């Protein structure tokens, strides 16, 4: 049953076999398939060993929060532009490099964590790919949001504060109509690059998490005592 593959690995380890046994007796209709899709989405969103116990931190939410970090560098760079330093190009380059390093670490960490939650290498690749894609997409969206905000007058307001003069009259509609192909194309490129790089890094994280090297990563991805229940991703009611 292919739809069961959409459930988190820990869920499948706990409920997969009995669900399969049930589905063999059940008439599969379109409604059943849609219900399984909703169930998989629900399990992915609420997976805490396997879905809703109280002890496991929601890893997907954590990963996305980490993925947000690169966008903070875009914000910092924007602030730097508002109040320019004598030479901000070095600072900008440093910020970009730092942002990409954080994104790379986030993707690797997610891959390792996916493995520690009972996933296979494929799950690590998916986790890393998602985080990489989210990181670059968020950075792209924040970057464009700040550009539009600056054009809408925020920059002029800040210039006024510094003793400058003049306002920019800005009309959002015509501007967006002009630049949307560039925005969409850029978003697609960022998403593709982030996904590809994240997948590779997620695989690396999963490999490191297996104990092939990287104990530091393993301990970082699963802080606290590691026991058999954590390994299987199930620490709810004993089976």
């Amino acid at each position, binding site marked *: 049953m292919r739809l069961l593959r959409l459930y988190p690995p820990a*869920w499948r380890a706990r*409920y997969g*076999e*009995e*669900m*399969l*046994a*049930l*589905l063999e*007796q*059940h008439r599969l209709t379109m*409604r*059943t398939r849609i*219900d*399984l*899709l*909703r*169930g*998989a989405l*629900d*399990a992915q969103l609420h997976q805490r060993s*396997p*879905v*809703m*116990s*109280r002890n496991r931190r929601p890893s997907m939410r954590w990963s996305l929060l980490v993925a947000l970090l690169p966008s903070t560098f875009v914000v910092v760079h924007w602030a730097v532009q508002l109040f320019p330093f004598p030479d901000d190009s070095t600072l900008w380059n440093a910020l970009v490099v730092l942002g990409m390093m954080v994104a790379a670490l986030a993707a690797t960490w997610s891959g390792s964590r996916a493995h520690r939650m009972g996933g296979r290498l494929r799950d690590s690749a998916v986790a890393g790919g998602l985080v990489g894609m989210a990181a670059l997409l968020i950075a792209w969206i924040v970057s464009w949001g700040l550009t539009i905000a600056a054009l809408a007058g925020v920059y002029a307001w800040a210039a006024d504060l510094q003793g400058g003069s003049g306002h920019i009259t800005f009309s959002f509609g015509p501007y967006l109509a002009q630049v949307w192909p560039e925005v969409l194309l850029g978003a697609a490129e960022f998403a593709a690059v982030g996904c590809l790089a994240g997948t590779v890094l997620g695989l690396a994280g999963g490999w490191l998490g297996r104990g092939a090297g990287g104990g530091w990563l393993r301990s970082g991805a699963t802080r606290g005592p590691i026991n058999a229940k954590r390994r299987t991703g199930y620490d*709810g*009611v004993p*089976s």
Partner: protein
Amino acid sequence: MPIQRPRTNDLADLGRFSEPALLVLASLAEGPKHGYAMMQDILEFHGARMEPGTLYGVLARLEARGWISPLPTEGRRRPYRLTAPGAAVLQAHLTVMQRVVSTGRHRLEPHGSRAAP
């Protein structure tokens, strides 16, 4: 008299899963059952067909709260049983429902009806 509903042990906390959870608890009140038997039982006493995705979303939540517990597997199937806290939650919910039902019925009776003609 205001109705006191338990806060921490309330089925309503389960959101969209609260009604399916009630059906599962009611089904297990009869005795341990595995997933397919629950679905058949619910179809029989409620008339609604519960789909597997919803059923296992409910089972995971009820199990995490300790309201049901799994029994050893029988082949590939795993039966579940209602626990004492689960029975208490079910009892509390049924009491509230019973009160709503009797109040509604009473108010719908001709002599007690306040509905506009």
